[in-house]
Structures are given as structure tokens and as C-alpha cells.
């Protein structure tokens, strides 16, 4: 139950962000974090962002080898 997953912000309306999580777009509450912008990577738990991370850090957390390689190749 303490699972949290990185997701990318694609839209923000007030305290709610639309985030892309494993190809699905969901809404996440962003009241617990600061400095969120479109393009930010958030750590989502139970529909709430609990942390902010860089894209590189998010990729590392996602543990998707192909994505990590793709990211490295694109430099």
C-alpha cells in the first residue's frame, strides 16, 4: 500500500494535475508538493503527489530498462 509511481504532468488546474502514468491519464492532487509545472515528474501515491523528481530520476524509478537505454541514447 505504500507503492508510489512516477508520472508526468501534462495539465494543471488549481490543486489538480492531469498526469500520464503508464500510458493512462489520471488526475492527481498536488497540494502536498511545491513547484509543479507541466512536464514535471511527480511521485504519485493514492491519487496524491507526494514528491517531485527529475525525468532521469523518474526513469530510474520506473525500472524500465528500454526507457533507460532510450533516455541515455538521446543524451
Amino acid at each position, binding site marked *: *500500500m*505504500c*507503492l*508510489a509511481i512516477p508520472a508526468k504532468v501534462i495539465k494543471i488546474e488549481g490543486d489538480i494535475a492531469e498526469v500520464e502514468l503508464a500510458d493512462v491519464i489520471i488526475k492527481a*492532487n498536488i*497540494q*502536498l*508538493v*511545491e513547484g509543479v509545472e507541466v512536464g514535471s515528474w511527480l*511521485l504519485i*501515491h*493514492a*491519487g*496524491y503527489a*507526494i*514528491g517531485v*523528481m*527529475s525525468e532521469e*530520476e523518474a526513469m*530510474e*524509478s*520506473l*525500472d524500465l*530498462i528500454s526507457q533507460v537505454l532510450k533516455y541515455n541514447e538521446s543524451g
Partner: protein
Amino acid sequence: MKVDNIKYDLSRFGELSANLMEVCGTHTMAFSRYGMYDMLPKDVRLLSGPGCPVCVTDGGFISTAIGLGREKDVIITTFGDMLRVPSRCGCLELVRAEGADVRVVYSPHQSVDIAQANPKKRVVFLAVGFETTIPTVALSILASRELKNHYFLTALRLIPPALNIIGSRKESRINGFILPGHVSVIIGRMAYEKIAERYKIPSVISGFNANDLMSSLSILLSMIKEKRNEVVNNYERVVTDVGNKRAQEVMEECFDVVDIKWRGLGVIEKSGMGLKADLSHLDARKAFETEITEEDEPEGCACGDVLAGLITPPECSLFSVVCSPDDPIGPCMVSSEGACAAYFKYGRL
């Protein structure tokens, strides 16, 4: 991924004898999924800890929730893991099959939405979780202040007081803690320092992918070998020294620290969170005039010892004989983060 290289690293500790506790249930599941128990030096054991919120919740909580679910015009909202946890009164899944309105939500805020959409019903959210979840419950509590039909049955727990108890127990014999990554996002690295110093237990905060886990094992075994009783942050991607201050503030706004019972560890002083007096009208215990009564463990079930790190699941006489995910006796076989379920699913019999 450089797991093989890190495995080579672990061979440096071939002479070391140690009991490590993976405090977090998600770590238990990850270690099992990646098959990492087999990569450890032969005298290093990984033991599960109390970090599965469903598992440490007393059966009495479930019985109380079932009682509320059977009341007229009540909707129970819950995380999915709670549905099949057994109690003296059965489980929530069974009550739902009998006609009770029990709904699975992935976020506490969904429960707020359900309450708003059903003004003639009373909606009770089963608020179970650790520091990762508590701030999300707190925000949904604040969003419910003006609602007349949304209540919270709480069993919210804090990890450091549980580690304090485990560290202080001589029978625990824990030599190193692998600390929960996402609890640490909220409370920060420094929240564990006193425990590591006081009980001389080196500790590492870990993430959840294969490299995170293997590098955490390597760091922890190094600290044990060198007798360094520190807390190393090996999940710097999201964990800081002080944690998420905003989340901590919202927790303080909604809750007082209270004593609470943990399966396997007993009542731990100041290890739970109860609603503050000015929010007590949202407390399901008060609104429904009910109390949670403690229940004995199912006969022969050793979930308590598993959660306290005293035994591994196969050491329980019920494990895989009469207790399995299809027909669970204890909560550790039910939850997706339960140690028994992880051992069973990944064939560590």
C-alpha cells in the same frame, strides 16, 4: 542493469552472519519477485517487518468495519487490500456478497466524491496506512469538514515507534534495517537516526527497483561489517534529510499522536494517529457510537511473529498447508504486500 556486478559485490561479505529486516511490505514483494534472497551470502537472512499496513491491523478493526457495513444506508469505502482480510466476523468481501455496499477506492479523495454523490447515505472510509498514506487521508479529511455524511474509521500508524520496539527486543536479533522508501519521502532520513544509534542497528533507505535493492544490501552489509550505526539514504531521488514538510504539516493539522495496537508487536506508545478534537465529528467511532475490540489471532496463525521478524513464513505450521492466497488464515497471506503471500507467490516454500 548491473545486478550481476553488484552480486559480485555481495560476495565480499561471505563471512558475515547477519539478520536484515526489510521493514516495508513492498520491499518484501520486490525481493521475492527479483529472486534476491538466493543472492545473499549464506549466513545473511532477510526477515520481513511490520511494514504492511493491512497485516498489522487487528482483526477487530475489520469486524467493526463489517458491523458498520451492515447498517442501513451505509457505504464502506476501502483500499482493495482490505477486502479479504479475515476477522471473527468474516471479511468485507463476504459482506459485500451478502449485499452490503462496500466499494474499493484507490484514493481517499474518491471516498469524498462518493459521499458528495450520495447525500442520503453515510460513507465510511477505512483509513489504514503509514506515513506515506496519512497525508493523503489528512487532505481528504480537510475536504470533508463541511460534509454531513463522510466519516473515517482510522488505523493509521507510524513506522519509527515500531522500529524502536523491534530494536529494543533482544529476541529480534536484527543487525540491519532496510528502511521503507516512500514512508521516508514523508518523514525524511533523520527520523531514523536516534533508533540506529540507540540500538546500534545500521540502516539504509532503499528504493524499489533491482539496482536500488542490491545496492542497498551492499551498503547495509558494509555498514554492519564496519560497525557503522548510521542511516544512509540510498533513495536520494525522492528522499531528503527532513522529508516533505508540507505533508508533515497537514498530518499535524488533522491528527494527534495516540497509542495503537500492532499485530505481533502489541500496543505501541505514540505509534498511531487519531483525529484531533475539532475534527472528531468525522470519526466513525463517535458518529456510530462503536468501538474497536481486540480479537485473538486465528488458531495456529503466526502472522504476528512474521511481522516482528522472529520467523520467516515457511516456519509457520499453517503456511501452504492450510493457509494459501486462495484460502488465507492470516492477513500476511492476503495482502499483496504480505510476507506470506510473497513467499507463496514466488515459490519460497
